[in-house]
């Protein structure tokens, strides 16, 4: 089978799973069986089917040039087509492996809390996963946009799951911000890209993700675009991707915390938010091309804005008493690391490959760490019905597994070895400390990035470690003494231990992850690194 055809297989599996979940809606055990089986099958296809082809066979020997798998061709520039490339593979691998964990966890959580509308819950989850695969393997901007929107729509019922007025209002905020940004900014950017880069009708790349960047190729072929337009489009894209939660469009993420914890854990720490930053990376590399962005030299604002978001969101997180809200603001802060990586990549030259690798690595590291933290929060809610940090005194003694996992994941967030978070921070720092022109001098904005990284490490420690301290070293409160409880249900504990182990394992067995992100370097053929204008 052709490599790119696998992408459609990977998308078909969750869709079939969704059909099975709907069919087995009346038999909970069968239904959950279908979910688990689907998740396992998807992981098998992505990790055993697609990943080895990319890693072992050496992806860049021609696969990029092979035509994408075109599902539907509508009109010039508009086609649903799919292609497997390393960045998408990183995202797909992270999402599919954590979906399996999350499915195990969700079964424990939903049953433990006796939630209603469980069929709808699992159904929407499968559809969301379908769109995640679509985003990961999209080979043009239009396809990416389509699945980006499907993901938004399919997660709405999950966020408003409780059905209370508060939940519906929060879900409306969620939907409102994501749809507003994507329609009014992103879609405008997409249409404009099709117009200013010549369009597929005239033999240009149009909206297809292109090695080196659509803009760069267009400029190299003699096209002409004003620098101001490129800068404007870049702003439209970055803020159009509301899922990346760059301030000030971050409000939807805390609002989404009203959802059941498996949703927050998987979608709002992994799938949805990573779809955002993944799209930012992909657009930076394959639509604009880091060379073009370096040449217009008007993208420093992105690094400043990302740095601002990192620091401010961390500060806000410090003052949140609700555990999930604290995690949400932490997510906002961590996502901006990846945006900052994209921003550093726009400096071009030698920085670009390292920065993109840092971005890819942080997608992996943050996903494993943050999902563990959310799992822990849900575990506490299920076992002890506690939602606030201030209620967690001494809980580590009653829920040792949960809180141990929480501590490990916290370390990963801070970036302490031996956890995955250390690796990505390392890459990011080396990106920030690499000179773009090879002459050994660093620009102001790079020094700014270095300062932000160190400052945020301190802040991360400031809002995570007190929780760990409370859990293990403070005595139980009188109220907690009166309501004894033990660990959460077994599926929950199993899932969160697995992800915590994963966080550590990624550090020790980093070869695979590093090999994967190193493939990203090939997105920057040396002939296309600079130039254009």
């Amino acid at each position: 089978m052709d490599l790119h055809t696998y992408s459609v297989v990977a998308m078909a599996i969750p869709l079939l799973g969704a059909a099975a979940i709907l069919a087995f809606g009346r038999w909970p055990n069968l239904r959950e069986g279908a979910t688990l089986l689907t998740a396992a099958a998807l992981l098998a296809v992505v990790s055993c089917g697609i990943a080895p082809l990319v890693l072992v066979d050496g992806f860049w020997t021609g696969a990029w040039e092979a035509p994408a798998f075109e599902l539907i061709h509508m009109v010039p520039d508009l086609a649903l087509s799919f292609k497997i490339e390393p960045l998408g593979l990183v995202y797909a691998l992270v999402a599919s492996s954590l979906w399996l964990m999350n499915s195990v966890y969700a079964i424990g959580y939903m049953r433990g809390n006796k939630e209603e509308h469980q069929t709808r819950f699992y159904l929407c989850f499968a559809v969301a996963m379908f769109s995640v695969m679509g985003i990961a393997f999209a080979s043009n901007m239009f396809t990416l946009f389509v699945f980006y929107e499907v993901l938004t729509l399919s997660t709405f019922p999950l966020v408003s799951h409780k059905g209370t007025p508060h939940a519906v209002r929060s879900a409306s905020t969620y939907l409102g911000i994501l749809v507003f940004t994507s329609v009014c900014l992103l879609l405008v950017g997409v249409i404009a890209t099709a117009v200013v880069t010549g369009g597929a009708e005239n033999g240009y790349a149009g909206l297809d993700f292109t090695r080196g960047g659509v803009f760069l190729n267009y400029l190299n072929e003699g096209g002409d675009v004003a620098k101001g337009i490129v800068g404007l489009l870049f702003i439209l894209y970055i803020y159009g991707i509301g899922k990346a939660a760059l301030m000030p469009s971050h409000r939807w993420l805390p609002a989404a915390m009203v959802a059941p914890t498996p949703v927050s854990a998987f979608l709002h720490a992994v799938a949805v938010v990573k779809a955002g930053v993944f799209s930012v990376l992909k657009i930076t590399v394959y639509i604009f091309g880091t060379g073009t962005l370096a040449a217009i030299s008007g993208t420093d604002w992105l690094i400043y804005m990302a740095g601002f978001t990192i620091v401010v969101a961390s500060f806000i997180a410090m003052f949140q008493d609700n555990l999930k809200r604290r995690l949400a603001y932490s997510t906002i802060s961590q996502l901006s690391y990846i945006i900052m990586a994209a921003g550093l990549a726009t400096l071009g030259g030698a920085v670009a490959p390292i920065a993109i690798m840092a971005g890819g690595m942080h997608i992996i590291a943050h996903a494993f760490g943050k999902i563990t933290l959310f799992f822990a929060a849900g575990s506490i809610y299920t076992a002890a019905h506690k939602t606030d940090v201030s209620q967690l005194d001494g809980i580590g003694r009653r829920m040792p597994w949960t809180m141990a996992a929480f501590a490990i994941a916290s370390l990963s967030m801070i970036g302490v070895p031996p956890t995955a978070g250390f690796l990505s921070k390392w890459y990011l720092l080396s990106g920030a400390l690499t000179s773009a022109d090879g002459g050994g001098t660093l620009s102001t904005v790079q020094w700014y990035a270095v300062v932000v990284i160190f400052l945020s490490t301190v802040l991360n420690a400031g809002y995570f470690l007190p929780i760990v301290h409370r859990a293990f070293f403070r005595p139980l409160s009188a109220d907690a003494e009166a309501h004894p409880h033990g660990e959460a249900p077994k599926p929950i504990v199993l899932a969160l231990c697995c992800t915590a182990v994963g966080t550590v394992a990624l550090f020790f067995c980093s070869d695979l992850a590093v090999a994967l992100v190193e493939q990203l370097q090939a997105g920057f053929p040396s002939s296309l690194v600079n130039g254009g204008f």
Partner: protein
Amino acid sequence: MIDSIPALMVVLPLMAGVITVFTGKGDKPWAWATAITGIVFAMSIALLAEVTAHGPVTYNFGNWPSQYGIAYTIDAMNGFVLFVVSLIAAVTTYYSRLSVKDEIPNDRLHIFYALWLLTICGLLGITITGDTFNVYVLLEISSLTLYALIAMGYRRDRRALTASLRYVILGSVGASFLLLGIGYLMMITGTLNMVDMHDRLQVLIHNDEYSRTIMVAYAFLLVGLSLKLALFPLHMWLPNAYTYAPSAVTGLVAATATKVAVYMTIRFLFGIFGRDFSFGAVESSDVLLTCAGLGVLYTGIQAARQNNVKSVLAWSSLGQIGYIVIGFSLNNENGLTGSVVHILNHALIKGGMFLALGCVAYRLGGTRLTHLKGLGRKMPWTMAAFTAGGLGLIGFPLTGGFIGKWYIGLGALDAGNWLILVVIMLGSLLAVIYVFRVVYAIYFGEAEPDSVHATEAPASMVVCTWILIGMSLVCGLWSEWSVDLAANAAKAMLAGFGGAH
């Protein structure tokens, strides 16, 4: 044979409409109307194929040369609109059997279907004819019968009467303006034939003669047409007329009447005055874009405030007409292509959605938001069609609604007009709000006591609804054919008179 189809397409429903009165009671008038509209639809396909393959088809009544007699000319543009109108007519007619029986007294069915066929006859005629006065006459045939059809909704809600009367007054004023404009043009060109008029007007415009008369004619025509196509702020007649008309009538009218008016506008602006005059000498682009742009925003907000879902869709129609007007006002190929393809897609989507509401009205007796609450489980197919149509209204990618907006958006950037692109997007956002409000009620609302025992609508109604919605989805996914047809039409119109020479 193919040469006489243009005439037959008007004469057949005209005659058949009169005969309907004598067809008797029960299902007979419906069966007769269904057969006629089916034949007309088949004819339109044949014509469209012929026009696409071999260029324009002309029929001269009484074999008079076209300057003296009435000539019917089909080119890429009206061939396409004809296809849309007759498709919608055929589907809605088949659909109407149960719905009309439910809403119209059984002793009036033959009258109803007579009016119904005459409306279709008028709409087809406006599209086919190449004679400006004929446009006026056929416009009045379709309008007069339509007024009566809308008023027939008064047995369910008496506001149908006031809505219909308002439509009578404003519609007639619009048509009279049209008549005045045509009169002025006839004064200076001495002809009524469109092609002839175009040629003579170009000479006059070129020589700068009678420029004030031409301007006055243009103004009257533009205002009259804007009234007919319900361009903001001349839209007041439309929302109530659509809301209180019988369900099947709303389905037919919403999908065709304003589309035909849009076609007339394009024909007059591009085909008769020529784009150099309409968008060069007069600069109507700014006026039209401003009206349409404000209209998109205003009607979107209004749609989100309605409690009757038919009203929601009626207001939404106004916004969608705004997009179509924006498209051709941009005066470039992408924009015009977008307009024309959106005529098709919006007709399918809005027609299908109104038919879905017709199913609801058939089962529950009303279409308020409270009626639709919790219907997602009780009428899954109907509601799925409604939801799919709603996505099309928003312009969700992969639906028909997206294609039109995409091309209009390309046209906006081709014209360098970023502002109007943002307006289009804000309009889509408002569409998200008003569609989502209804869809949320359908799938997440608790059913009212009145609708607890509702069941799925009869198969014939659901199938018709799905034919339209399904076609809109097909047009969204495999859009090359419809876009090609639209692009041909746009090229023909941009070239002056649609290649009728």
